[in-house]
């Protein structure tokens, strides 16, 4: 993203914007052109704002024009009350929109669900009703007539032209800032895989609510002025669903999640709308046309203009550069020369607590009538490699999920460094030093290996959210971790291009970026070839030597018994046995749990 801005291609839009900036001076009597361009600016402002939540984070809002309406009413009501020009009320319009967005965002964006898209429509209609019914404040369905601005009549709409133009530039700048920040990277991670994003320390609720709030601000500011520009504010006009259609269409046609896509799209849609008004006439025809364009875009150019074009260029380039995907030897090599202790060591790791690093006390988890985990106590000693094995259905994964925060246990406690983390969010656990991998890898597949490694966050802070995407020492650390894992040559590849086994190693590397004090591995050896299993075992040993505690849930019993200091055996939701690998290997109960009670008899019969 950063590199993109430095490329000459970024000057094309800037040059075009400069041309647009001087139009009122160059063209005399350009009232009509100015009016159309003002609509273009407004559409760009809205499409770019919408893009922050719906493009970057992937949460589609169909009622985003509500924030334009809130700005319009704020401008109209306060402008009349205080007798000031609407342009001075832009900050207040932005503030009102942001406050409403924050409240609604907090309610519907906490969990990952489809409630969001639906609530956005309901919120738009609710505000329409509110505006129509709060007569003393809003004038009801008749609306509010806004007095003209105080500037000289001869100036016409030119001041509006520059107000909206500057607002558009500010919105584009805001959008560029977010995209190049950690916040933007986190939002893209959320769009790719929200659960995974949380597990690598991204506070998904905070990120989504922040993006939603930011996305409302340009709407509120523009709305405050737009009401006076139209000289009239009423419920149906201010909270029009068609406005939402236009802005969604603008972002979609130009290209979601890109900086310039909504800009191009905003101009295209505004001009197309003007043409269709001139050619086709009334609102009915426009609704039909916009519907058709929306359907055709979704079906045939879902990525939008800009990404479609840039993908084509990229594909041509890529076919020229050869990449070695199956360099197993390089991966399997022991990278003894790479010192990892400093890269992954936890600065605050010397926690004063001397007891076990992870303790599970009396965990019970039921699904309906099934008790998957029944009153389990389990300890993971500091600095150990601990195994958790058990037949399928014994409750391993459920217990694992209770430790990582995917599930809340019905009762019982999880203690990390002696601190109760049972109720903590997934990302908080990541910040506290608990890293996990997934049985089926969950990398951000559209991102490069390096971007995947830079994504994890060791803490949540405002400073970090606004920090540049590649600021700090993350990139250097990521490269060192990749070298350690033998994955250095893949850094620029998309994660999806790697084999499943390679992806498992990348996922482990990603977790290391969190500087975890304990790593929970969910079936790390399932589905990968023996060479990589060997590599994995040596990596786990090296990490353990460097002071990291490891808990492995695994079906590959030889691997577990060869690696682990302590093994816990789970059967039917309860701990059957805890002991050294030798004790576990020879215990008849364990054999019985895995193979059933009759196998010895049958063996005798043979």
């Amino acid at each position: 993203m950063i590199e993109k801005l430095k490329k000459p291609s970024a000057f094309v839009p800037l040059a075009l914007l400069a041309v647009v900036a001087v139009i009122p001076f160059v063209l005399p009597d350009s009232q009509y052109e100015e009016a159309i361009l003002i609509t273009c600016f407004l559409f760009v402002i809205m499409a770019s704002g919408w893009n922050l939540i719906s493009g970057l984070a992937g949460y589609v809002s169909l009622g985003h024009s509500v924030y334009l309406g809130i700005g319009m009413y704020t401008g109209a009501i306060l402008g009349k009350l205080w007798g000031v020009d609407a342009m001075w009320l832009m900050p207040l319009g932005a503030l009102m929109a942001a406050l409403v967005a924050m409240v609604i965002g907090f309610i519907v964006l906490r969990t990952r669900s489809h409630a969001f898209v639906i609530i956005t429509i309901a919120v738009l209609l609710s505000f329409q009703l509110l505006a129509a019914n709060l007569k003393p404040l809003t004038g009801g369905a008749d609306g509010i007539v806004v007095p003209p601005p105080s500037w000289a009549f001869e100036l016409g709409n030119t001041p509006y032209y520059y107000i909206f133009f500057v607002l558009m530039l500010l919105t584009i700048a805001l959008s560029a800032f977010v995209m190049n920040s950690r916040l933007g990277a986190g939002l893209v991670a959320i769009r790719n895989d929200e659960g995974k994003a949380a597990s690598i320390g991204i506070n998904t609720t905070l990120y989504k609510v922040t993006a939603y709030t930011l996305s409302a601000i340009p709407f509120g500011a523009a709305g405050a002025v737009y009401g006076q520009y139209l000289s009239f504010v009423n419920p149906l006009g201010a909270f029009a669903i068609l406005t939402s259609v236009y802005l969604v269409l603008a972002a979609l046609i130009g290209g979601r999640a890109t900086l310039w896509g909504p800009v191009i799209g905003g101009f295209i849609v505004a001009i197309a709308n003007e043409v269709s008004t001139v050619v086709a006439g009334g609102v009915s025809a426009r609704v039909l046309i916009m519907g058709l364009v929306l359907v055709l875009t979704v079906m045939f150019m879902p990525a939008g203009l800009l990404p479609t074009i840039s993908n084509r260029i990229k594909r041509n380039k890529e076919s020229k550069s050869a990449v070695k995907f199956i360099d197993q030897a390089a991966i399997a090599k022991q990278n003894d020369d790479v010192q990892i202790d400093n890269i992954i060591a936890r600065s605050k790791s010397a926690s004063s607590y001397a007891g076990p690093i992870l303790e599970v006390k009396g965990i019970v988890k039921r699904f309906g009538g099934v008790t998957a985990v029944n009153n389990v106590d389990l300890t993971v000693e500091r600095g150990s490699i601990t195994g958790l094995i058990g037949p399928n259905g014994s409750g391993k994964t459920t217990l694992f999920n209770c430790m990582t925060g995917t599930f809340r246990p019905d009762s019982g406690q999880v203690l990390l460094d002696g601190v109760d983390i049972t109720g903590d969010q997934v990302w908080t656990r990541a910040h506290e030093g608990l890293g996990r991998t997934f049985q089926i890898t969950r990398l951000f597949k559209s991102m490069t290996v390096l971007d995947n490694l830079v994504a994890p966050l060791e803490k949540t802070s405002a400073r970090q959210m606004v920090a540049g995407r590649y600021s700090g020492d993350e990139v250097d650390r990521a490269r060192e971790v990749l070298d350690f894992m033998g994955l250095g040559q893949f850094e620029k590849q998309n994660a999806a291009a790697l084999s499943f086994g390679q992806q498992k190693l990348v996922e482990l590397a990603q977790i290391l970026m969190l500087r975890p004090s304990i790593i929970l591995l969910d079936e790390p050896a399932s589905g990968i070839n023996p060479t990589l299993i060997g590599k994995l075992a040596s990596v786990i040993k090296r990490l353990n030597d460097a002071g990291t505690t490891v808990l492995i849930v695994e079906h590959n019993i030889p691997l577990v018994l060869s690696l682990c200091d302590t093994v816990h055996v789970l059967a039917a939701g309860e701990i059957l046995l805890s002991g050294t690998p030798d004790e576990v290997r020879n215990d008849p109960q364990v054999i019985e749990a895995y193979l059933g009670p009759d196998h010895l008899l049958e063996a005798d019969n043979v």
Partner: protein
Amino acid sequence: MQFIQILAFGLLLGGVYALLASGVTLIFGVLDVVNVAQGAFLVFSALFTWQIWDLFGFEPLLLIPLNGLLMGLLGWAIYRGMLVRVAPQGPGMTVLLMFGIALILEGILNLWFGNKFKSVTPSYYLSSFNFGDIVLPMPQLISGILAFITLGLIYAYLRFSWAGRALRASAQNKEGAALVGISQRSAASLAFAIGAATAGVGGVLLAIMYPIFPATQYDWISRLLGIVVLGGFGSIPGAITGAMILGVTEAFANTYLPQWSSLFFYGAILLILLFRPQGLMGTKTREDVVA
């Protein structure tokens, strides 16, 4: 007595809402698609009813099977022709597709009927049913009862037929259902057709209850989606519960504070989501093993 009358009225209204919302929730459960075009389907069916009634003047309720069938076919065609192509891109894009389809339908209806309210007024339009002290408007009573009957038929179909079982299986676990031989494409087409058909039937019921014009699709869709959010996505019992809550809330609000009735409902949704983000009967799904 007035209390019981309002309650009965609300439950009848809730029955109609329940029918419509169960279509949305069924489509979501099987396809993972938020069908924002359901309101447009509904208005389409209602205005079609008005057109036929206006032309020929026979009993509008006789159109129920025809409209159900027509909308079912339309739903099937939309799924096969468009949705199946867009589905791999995820719920964000399918919702935009359905939104586009809703706009197209609204645009067509606008050009066809103009932006005017159309009312179907059969002979019983203004009559009412007296049960002791309780007085219920005849159109509401008929619509409510027919909605419950249709809902019962759909429920029986899902519960007892092979295809219904296949749909329920697909709603719970798509990969698993595919593995035991349920074509996911057929299951999805069927679910979408049934979902759209509920809008076909519901459109006729609405036509005898309310005046309709094309842009009312937004009011309807936001009500229906509100019900589904409230009840919990993909849960038919949840949709029925949510619909009853909306019906009763609206009935009471309409009696005492008419202009605020929708706002009460939306307010209630936000309040409930604050404490139960998954809706009343929704469950949190397990995500850790999803590839």
